[in-house]
């Protein structure tokens, strides 16, 4: 048994496949909690003004929102253990209102913590190796990754060791703690992009060159928000040993040339757009050549130490298909639908990847009650080596389920209202909290998601429609990723009323595209009608095997605009 194995085995409830803190990590997080406790005390005593305190609370993930404070907890690359999920549930019960909201950055937000309780919450999180550091502020945020990491059949390499490596490099990086704006990195190691890397400040795609060596395609300058851009390749193949130095060079170029005079033009995407990728690439390469790279020299031993935490769990040798699964599907149609929609292929024979939708019909996208969190923790221990993932689509993944166990798992989930069979379908809507919670929002987004979900509540109709990404943001900051929704919805204020702008043709994958505006804004009540008309038109026009985005690309935006205008002229309520 290696030292790492021994350390993992010695921990209570130790999962098999995630990073565990060493003494340095634990001390670092504990010190941060103590430091923040002191800062809160100084704020409450008046020793710190709000202006002085605000950067401290934001560095610890604490925002002030519409109704209360909000605490954003980091879930690095979306990976959680059962123990951590249970702790999130306990915190929700003890210090919040019995639920949490899983976000598009694979994090969790509590909507009602009190300032005075926050140090205790952070201490409770630290106890299970969690924190809220760098979930806010102009720093490198939580590094996200493919939620099927380590189990997807199309994977070249598990992206989580790289993501963890970057997390350690970027945590409290002294040079990058006060960047011009926030900075988001995503990593994928698969042939299909499930991490939306092309719309991140830096997107990393693990690739293999002709010699069979692993490296990274590095994309820079993607992003959503007020000015959406698709990232551009700045490094075609960056060897692993150069990765940290190369990223350091990009961040230095951004830190030096990124605009600080206007926060709306401060993201690296604007720098890339204004300078052009060729000039940025030249600047990065010059910085890379000139810098002392020995500081960032790759440490294979450290990388292997980290990678060892993500070793595959002890899978059984199983047949590729399960007779039990086949029989249960025949016997229980609802289960069969769940398997067909929410269960994906696994790289290990006899296993499956299960997506647990947090989008019940008419529910709040991404919300889970504390009881549901405990069910998920229990389910992961019974059926999945105690590991869970949070997807940027605001769902929970159980990445290692035996096909033989799928029916028992489904029964458990169904009893907890967690078995909605809509993963990737029209009601699996990404939605930011919008004006129901967020102080930046200009309109509500959750009620729009609920109304669309109810409009398409017939699950057989949803399955006929097929994969369709609907994404809703309650303001131009685009936390709901509306720019990359096949159908995107943006809530704005127009003449003192909530108004919704519809876009079509967005795509967050390797074939990324930014959605195009359909027409003038519509009211909240009109949105479900508009979406339904668009979907009906797609169904009428689609060719065999075409998803909504394919049909839209084939026949063009104008045809969709036309049909909507004709429907309006015919008296439809749109």
């Amino acid at each position, binding site marked *: 048994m290696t030292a790492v194995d021994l350390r993992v085995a010695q921990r209570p409830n130790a999962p098999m496949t995630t990073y565990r803190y060493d003494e340095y990590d634990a001390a670092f997080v504990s010190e941060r909690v103590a430091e923040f406790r002191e800062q809160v005390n100084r*704020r409450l005593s008046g020793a710190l003004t709000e202006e002085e305190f605000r950067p401290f609370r934001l560095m610890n993930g604490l925002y002030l929102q*519409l*109704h209360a404070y909000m605490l954003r907890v980091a879930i690095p690359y979306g990976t959680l253990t059962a123990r951590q999920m249970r702790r999130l549930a306990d915190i929700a019960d003890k210090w919040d209102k019995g639920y949490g909201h899983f976000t598009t950055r694979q994090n969790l937000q509590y909507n*009602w913590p*009190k300032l*005075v309780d926050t140090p205790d919450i952070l201490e409770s999180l630290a106890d299970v190796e969690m924190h809220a550091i760098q979930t806010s502020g102009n720093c490198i945020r939580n590094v996200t990754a493919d939620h099927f990491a380590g189990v997807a059949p199309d994977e070249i390499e598990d992206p989580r060791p790289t993501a963890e490596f970057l997390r350690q490099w970027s945590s409290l990086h002294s040079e990058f703690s006060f960047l011009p704006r926030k900075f988001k990195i995503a990593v994928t190691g698969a042939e299909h992009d499930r991490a939306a890397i092309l719309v991140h400040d830096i997107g990393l795609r693990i690739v293999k060159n002709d010699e069979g060596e692993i490296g990274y395609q590095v994309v820079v300058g993607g992003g959503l928000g007020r000015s959406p851009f698709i990232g551009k390749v700045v490094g075609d193949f960056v060897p692993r040993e150069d990765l940290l130095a190369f990223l350091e060079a990009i961040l230095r170029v951004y830190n030096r040339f990124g605009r600080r005079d206007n926060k709306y033009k401060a993201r690296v995407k604007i720098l890339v757009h204004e300078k052009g990728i060729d000039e940025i690439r030249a600047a990065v390469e010059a910085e890379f050549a000139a810098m002392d790279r020995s500081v960032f020299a790759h440490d294979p031993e450290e990388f292997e130490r980290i990678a060892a935490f993500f070793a595959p769990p002890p899978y059984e040798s199983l047949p590729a298909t399960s007779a039990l699964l086949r029989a249960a599907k025949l016997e229980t149609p609802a289960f069969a639908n769940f398997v067909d929609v929410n269960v994906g292929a696994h790289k290990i024979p006899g296993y499956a990847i299960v997506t647990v939708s947090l989008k019940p019909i008419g529910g*709040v996208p991404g919300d889970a009650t504390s009881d549901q969190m405990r069910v998920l923790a229990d389910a992961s221990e019974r059926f999945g080596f105690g590991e869970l993932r949070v997807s940027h689509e605001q769902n929970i993944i159980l990445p290692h389920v035996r096909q033989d166990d799928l029916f028992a798992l489904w029964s458990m989930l169904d009893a907890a209202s967690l078995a909605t069979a809509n993963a990737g379908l029209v009601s699996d809507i990404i939605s930011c909290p919008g004006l129901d919670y967020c102080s930046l929002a200009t309109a509500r987004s*959750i009620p729009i998601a*609920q109304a669309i979900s109810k409009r398409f509540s017939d699950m057989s109709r949803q399955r006929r429609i097929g994969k369709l990404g609907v994404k809703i943001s309650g303001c131009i900051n685009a936390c709901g990723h509306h720019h990359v929704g096949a159908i995107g919805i943006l809530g704005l204020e127009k003449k003192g009323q909530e108004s919704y702008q519809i876009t079509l043709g967005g795509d967050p994958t390797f074939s990324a595209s930014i959605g195009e505006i359909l027409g003038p804004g519509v009211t909240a009540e009109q949105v479900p009608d508009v979406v339904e008309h668009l979907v009906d038109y797609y169904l009428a026009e689609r060719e065999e095997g075409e998803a909504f985005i394919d049909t839209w690309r084939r026949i063009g935006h104008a045809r969709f605009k036309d049909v909507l205008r004709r429907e309006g002229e015919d008296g439809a309520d749109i």
Partner: protein
Amino acid sequence: MPVFKHPQILIASNLTDGEVVFLGSSGWERDHRRARVARKAEEATALEALGKRDISANHVVDVYLADVEIGSDGAPTPLHYREKMRVKGPSVRLDLGKQAGEGAL
């Protein structure tokens, strides 16, 4: 100075718990119906001054004036949908916030 068009109340967030509060006649209230109403620009300016005082005293944060209309019972109701949300709670969780009796409505 912005043009004074409507009666206004002073809204803030309570420092310790973040709850939405409204400046009343004898301090910060959790029920907007008990808010003190400024009916003239000078009264609004006076409310703001009190808000600044209580920011300095570390009672409240994020203080601003909001336009209201006065009902037949004399109670103020915010005009903008954002502040209407703040005096109630999330529209998607009627069991939470002031509308659910958590704090006063």
